[in-house]
């Protein structure tokens, strides 16, 4: 069963079209990265999936219409909007009491186990915790919920690299398994490259690239071209070219691997590099 299925998903605000007819299908057990520039429609898409905003078109999350049934949906869906949405006045122990009091799939013991690995005191208030600790607390509360879908919207915004790494490590090791689905948006795309199973670029309310990570790696190839072969390389129509230490790195899409390998040192492109290339292309197309 598809965890998320959307057809012609549209959302227009007064002056902008945030989602311009998106078709989307996320299968169970995938970890999808939703990547896009600011204002691309990522958060609107997630809000629609979470039942936080109305929309036009068809959308089913775990078989339900999110806008009509947010409450029921939230029994099976968890989400972390960003690190700073936990109420600042709440005490850690009260937070656990509350979630345990309202959530039928919350396992208090599990949350306590996760918290025991941190330095968070039960008697502290959220406002007394550091940003990293708040993220850990939120993650502990969310991971203790036996959800089918976890949505993360910039979950590590403003955290230092240590916390960010730990965040994704716990998510993968302690939480993710074959019947869970995770959708994540972040600007720190390279950090989640090895976490994702699927990738989606979104720009101005449209999906501009959709691919599994295996497909992504066979589709895109980056070469650090030897200077004498630069012209030959350019003839193969790279989608992007950037200078690195005085040499040119060219990004190819669906190129002949052997042909490209002959041009220089090949390497796996990062999501960020492909993102910049694809977005640049989008801009050129839009400009024409």
């Amino acid at each position, binding site marked *: 069963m598809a965890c998320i299925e959307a057809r012609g998903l549209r959302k227009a605000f007064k002056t902008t079209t945030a989602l311009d007819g998106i078709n989307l299908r996320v299968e169970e057990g995938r970890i999808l990265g939703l990547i896009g520039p600011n204002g691309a429609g990522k958060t609107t898409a997630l809000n629609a999936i979470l039942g936080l905003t109305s929309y036009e078109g068809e959308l089913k999350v775990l078989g339900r219409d999110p806008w009509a049934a947010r409450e029921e949906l939230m029994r099976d869906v968890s989400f972390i909007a960003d690190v700073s949405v936990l109420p*600042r006045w709440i005490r850690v122990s009260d937070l656990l009491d509350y979630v345990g009091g309202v959530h039928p*799939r919350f396992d208090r013991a599990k949350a306590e186990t996760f918290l025991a690995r941190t330095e968070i005191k039960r008697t502290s208030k959220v406002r007394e915790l550091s940003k990293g600790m708040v993220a850990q607390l939120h993650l502990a509360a969310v991971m203790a919920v036996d959800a089918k879908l976890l949505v993360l919207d910039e979950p590590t915004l403003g955290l230092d690299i240590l916390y960010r790494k730990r965040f994704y490590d716990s998510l993968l090791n302690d939480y993710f398994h074959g019947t869970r689905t995770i959708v994540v948006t972040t600007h720190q795309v390279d950090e989640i490259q090895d976490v994702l199973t699927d990738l989606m670029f979104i720009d101005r309310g449209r999906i501009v690239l959709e691919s599994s990570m295996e497909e992504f790696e066979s589709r895109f190839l980056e070469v650090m071209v030897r200077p004498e072969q630069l012209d030959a390389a350019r003839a193969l129509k790279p989608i992007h070219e950037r200078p690195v230490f005085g040499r040119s790195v060219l990004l190819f899409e669906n190129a002949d691997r052997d042909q490209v390998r002959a041009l220089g040192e090949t390497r796996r492109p990062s999501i960020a590099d492909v993102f910049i290339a694809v977005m640049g292309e989008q801009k050129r197309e839009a400009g024409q």
Partner: protein
Amino acid sequence: MNEQVETMTANTEPASNIGTRPFYWSVRREIWENRSLYLAPLTVAGVIIIGFMFTAVGLADRRRAVLALDDPAIAQAAIEMPYSMAAMMIMFTGFLVGVFYCLDALHGERRDRSILFWKSLPVSDFTTVLSKITIPLVVLPAISFAVIVATQLAIFLISSVVLLAHGISPMTTLSHTNLLQGVFILIYGLIALSLWHTPTYGWMLFVSAWARRAAFLWAILPAVAITFFEKIVFGTNYFADFLKHRFLNWAEEAFAFRRTSHGTPILDSLSQLTPGRYLSTPGLWLGLIFAAICVAAAIRLRRSRGPI
């Protein structure tokens, strides 16, 4: 590691945390967040008690003068005065706290973005908004009741000690008043008061769900605007009178006050409670309908509102 987790969760049924009570916990979290709900009445109670201690210096002389009066009604009114003053001040505090609570109830969570956390839990907007209107309608009157009774008890104890020290029996207080009956009248009064003010709370809650900023201004601006408009265009004061009635007249509908020969209203008999007249006031029911519309609108608004 992944495999381990997989088998672990595969063996257990979906974790069921049975017996969740979203409404109960939503009300509790409101009290956690808004400590002023009980701190404000307690502070006022403290001020009243301290104030009473200052006046206790002349208490014995005043009591002797009161006991020498011929009119028992005036004597009773004089002895009851600090008790009813305390009750009224704490009730008024409860009203103010309720108004400001409602104005912030659906605004604060959008301002500090915590609405995104609350909405990530399986608690409906209906339950949430209902738990919020429960605060001024049920929780605050209950707190007011407890604080008023405790304050009156403290006043009684302080006055008893002072009277005893001056050789007057504290029983003179009890023989001129009926404290148990007073408790009953207080419960009745608190219920009548909160029903009467339900539309005010509902309106504030609606504004707090609707306004993006300056909720207080939006809440009172329409009333001020209509009042001025009416005054300027028609030269009348119907709307202002209506508002005055809305805020102050509950007691006149709920009680049949007797007046002493000095004109002080007194309430010394349960026969002075007029629930029939109170409940048949059309304004009460129109107000409750208005409140229901406001609350329904607030529920609808919360559904589509995000952080501001």
